[in-house]
């Protein structure tokens, strides 16, 4: 009994709401990788152990599982702070903005970097509750300046939008190269 108590004391740590959920999910992910280790990484004949393609994935997955197991023990023996559901909802809410981001990614090769960036910053500004004229103007200026700095100035590799093909001849090439 004393040994068990000592063990518990050793693993006690600061535990935030949602810690146990994360620890269980992470260990589940590790076990899934462990179960797939044989099929997803190969051991070849006549090759030294450390030079085997499967050597480092095996080390990594076993290491992850070992520490994830101990982390879960730590989570189970540490004092719980209530608020798991609220925290889970917070994590899920972040998916909303991740989806907006992916819609923005999808729109860039279609409508072009300039228009999609201005619309995305404007949309997010409104979505966040900023409705003042200053906020709207600032978001449009920000979107514009991002495009001017990165696409026009630094010429980073972003493909021109398909929409640019329908622009008048006089500005089509300019838009394709700089916007």
């Amino acid at each position, binding site marked *: 009994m004393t040994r068990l108590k000592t063990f518990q004391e050793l*693993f006690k740590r600061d535990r935030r709401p949602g810690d146990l959920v994360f620890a269980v999910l992470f260990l589940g992910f590790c076990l899934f990788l462990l179960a797939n280790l044989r099929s997803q990484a190969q051991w070849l004949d006549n090759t030294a152990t450390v030079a085997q393609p499967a050597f480092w994935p095996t080390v990594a997955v076993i290491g992850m599982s070992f*520490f994830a197991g101990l982390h879960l023990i730590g989570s189970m023996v540490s004092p719980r702070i209530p608020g798991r559901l609220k925290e889970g909802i917070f994590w899920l809410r972040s998916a909303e903005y991740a989806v907006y981001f992916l819609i923005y990614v999808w729109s860039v090769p279609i409508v072009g970097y300039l228009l999609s960036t201005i619309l995305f910053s404007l949309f997010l500004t409104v979505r966040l509750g900023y409705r003042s004229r200053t906020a709207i103007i600032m978001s449009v200026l920000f979107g514009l300046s991002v495009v001017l700095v990165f696409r026009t100035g630094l010429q980073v590799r972003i493909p021109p939008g398909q929409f640019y093909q329908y622009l008048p001849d006089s500005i089509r090439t300019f838009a394709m190269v700089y916007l």
Partner: protein
Amino acid sequence: MEAILGGIQILMSWQVLVALLIGSVGGVIIGAIPGVGAAVAIAILLPATFAFEPIVGLTVLLGIYGSAMYGGSIPAILLNTPGTPVNALTTYDGYPMTKRGQAHRALSLAYSASFFGGVFAIICLILFAPVLAWVAPNFGSREIFLAALLGIILVILAHRGQIMAAGMMAFLGIFLSTIGLEPARYTHRFTFGQGWLTSGINLIVIVLGLFAISQALLLLLDKERKPESARVEGSLWGGFVELLGLKRVAGVASSLGVMMGTIPGVGEFTAQFLSYTYAQKTSKTPETFGDGSPEGLVASECANNAVPAAAMIPLLALGVPGEALTAMMLSVFYVHNVIPGPQLFQNEMDFVMALYMAMLLLNVIVIVFLLSSTNLLLKITQIPTRFLGMMILVLSFVGVYSLRNSAVDCALAAGFGVFGLILKRLNLPIVPIVLGVVLGAIMEVKLRSAIARINEPLDWFNRPISVVLILLILFVVGNHYRAVLLEHRQRVQRAADGELKGREGEAPVAPEGF
């Protein structure tokens, strides 16, 4: 001397100087905005710098890295909110000084201490460069593998109280580095038959997701904060005179910063902690620490600004990054086919010197900029945090998409963003993932090439540096085990004496445990 002159010649191009100006001023601004930080900025700008010459690209990133902490001291002192995580200790003494009406003095001292720490570290680097050039060629594949292994172990052990979480994150990083087509035998590893996983997961996608997108999501979802602060009146040059009276603390703190920066996986926090503890123990007024002590402020600012320059040592000399930001910089080297490591010190010493002198110059630019525009920076710190989140999310797109115009990369980065947000909310460490990715790849390649010359286990001990590194690894692990055991015994003893009774008669959580 020849290398120094060569370095000056490399620096004297308008592109490098403009990069230096943009990097250092941009770094101060980014550091001054709570919630952004150098990691986010470097992650976003990384792909943009691939188009530049290596020295130009690295100068921009170095500028941001080296100057962000200067800017981070402004909100730490005036608003009690550290601009970058490493400025947290600055709030201990800086903010109480502001409350006493000494904001002007605190800022002035912080700037001069930061300048001293930064310049001290670079002078050390320049002086040690010949020694490094002499030692570095003795590092073969075996030694670099052991140095990377030591780095991983130190990163895990540096997270006291979170060792298990740091361990699983470091191994997750190593796992991520193995996904895709294996480079020696071309077999697939953990691709699950998916074509988009064949080329692996790019480091920048992981870094952008974990640092930039996660921070954007956090700011977008959190409550709005719009900090307010009064203007700072008068000249800020006085701190240099006051620093003269605190030269012992400044010297020791900067030396500790250099030492801790050199060791992979240790970094600013340990340097600050040791410096602060030293300053407090040797002070005539230890009771003022945490309540507006100029010595405490100087100790923390000198130490954290000495680290960035010193952290370049393992990166340049061995190709082994010691923390997340230098890990990101490693990818700039690789993109330009400049391989940091012993060969760099042997063959391109002028390039190394150019980097050192760029860091020296950036400290001068930053201090001049800070002394003349603190009130302007104060306005920038007042950007509403959710609006800032929108800005980071928009900028993150450039970082990920410009890599290879892949929507899959963006989706992966968004996934890592959500994962990073969860880790931040749970106060779990992120840095071990990035170091795991970088050091894992290094360990795999180096161990494979080292093993050709190792026929039996004792062969690991037939080279002096290899022996030193193995002994260091054993010492670090053994020492940590001993420390945990000792602390645990003390806790048990104190609990038995009835000193640690918490709520409902239960002993409180052990922050020093695993």
